[in-house]
């Protein structure tokens, strides 16, 4: 004997589906967030073109800025979802990190080992562009995780 009827179960499932649709719409990253994050990530590769002192300075600024960015997002959206959350989103996050690492190391090697000046800046631009795409893919994966097409 089940504690509730099938009609009640269906009603409850519909409520969950409605909540998921609402959440999927709510957590869309605003433009200022995804643009800032993309440019900051690109900057990590581009700054490798400069002397080590500037690299360290940028990295320090990067982490402080990242903390501010997350704080601003949480304050504005009233929610927080880590990129590495379980589900399809984790695959997008891990895949993105691998791609960034390949571009980062590749551009560093081309610039510093093969002597092609500007390769780190090109790598940074590429990472920034890819990060924009990955933000979009992550949101799509999140919507699918919630069962929202």
């Amino acid at each position, binding site marked *: 004997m*089940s*504690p*509730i009827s*099938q009609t009640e*179960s*269906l009603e*409850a*499932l519909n*409520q*969950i589906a409605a*909540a*998921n649709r*609402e*959440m*999927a719409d*709510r*957590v869309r990253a605003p433009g200022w967030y995804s643009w800032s994050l993309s440019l900051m990530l690109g900057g990590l590769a581009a700054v490798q073109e400069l002397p080590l002192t500037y690299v360290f300075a940028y990295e320090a600024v990067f982490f402080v800025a990242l903390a501010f960015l997350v*704080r601003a997002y*949480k*304050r504005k*959206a*009233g*929610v*927080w*979802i*880590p990129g590495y*959350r379980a589900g399809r989103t984790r695959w997008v996050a891990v895949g993105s990190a691998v791609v960034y690492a390949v571009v980062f190391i590749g551009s560093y090697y081309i610039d510093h080992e093969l002597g092609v000046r500007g390769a780190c800046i090109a790598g940074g631009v590429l990472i920034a562009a890819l990060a924009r795409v990955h933000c979009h893919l992550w949101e799509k994966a999140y919507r699918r995780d*919630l069962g929202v097409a």
Partner: protein
Amino acid sequence: MKAEFDPVIHPPPRLQICARLAAVETMDFATLREMLDVSESVLSKHVKTLEEAGYVAVRKATSDGRQRTWLALTSAGRKAFAGHAAALRALVGGADSRAAE
């Protein structure tokens, strides 16, 4: 995951709370209240019940000089909610398969 009906989660307001918290890591109390369109006292009461069941963790933090309350489903809460949703699906699925016979 075990499909198990959970009487703590099932009442509509608590189901709505759990469904929204399951989609995020943490959510501001005021944001949740706005989404559910309920009074602060009603939401507090349901959050308290879920907190007592060990399903919701409540954390207070000061931001820009004002205190905000952040809510999160605990791992027990996530498991219970997933199990409850699975039990609901099983009930509906059972009805579908009987209707098809």
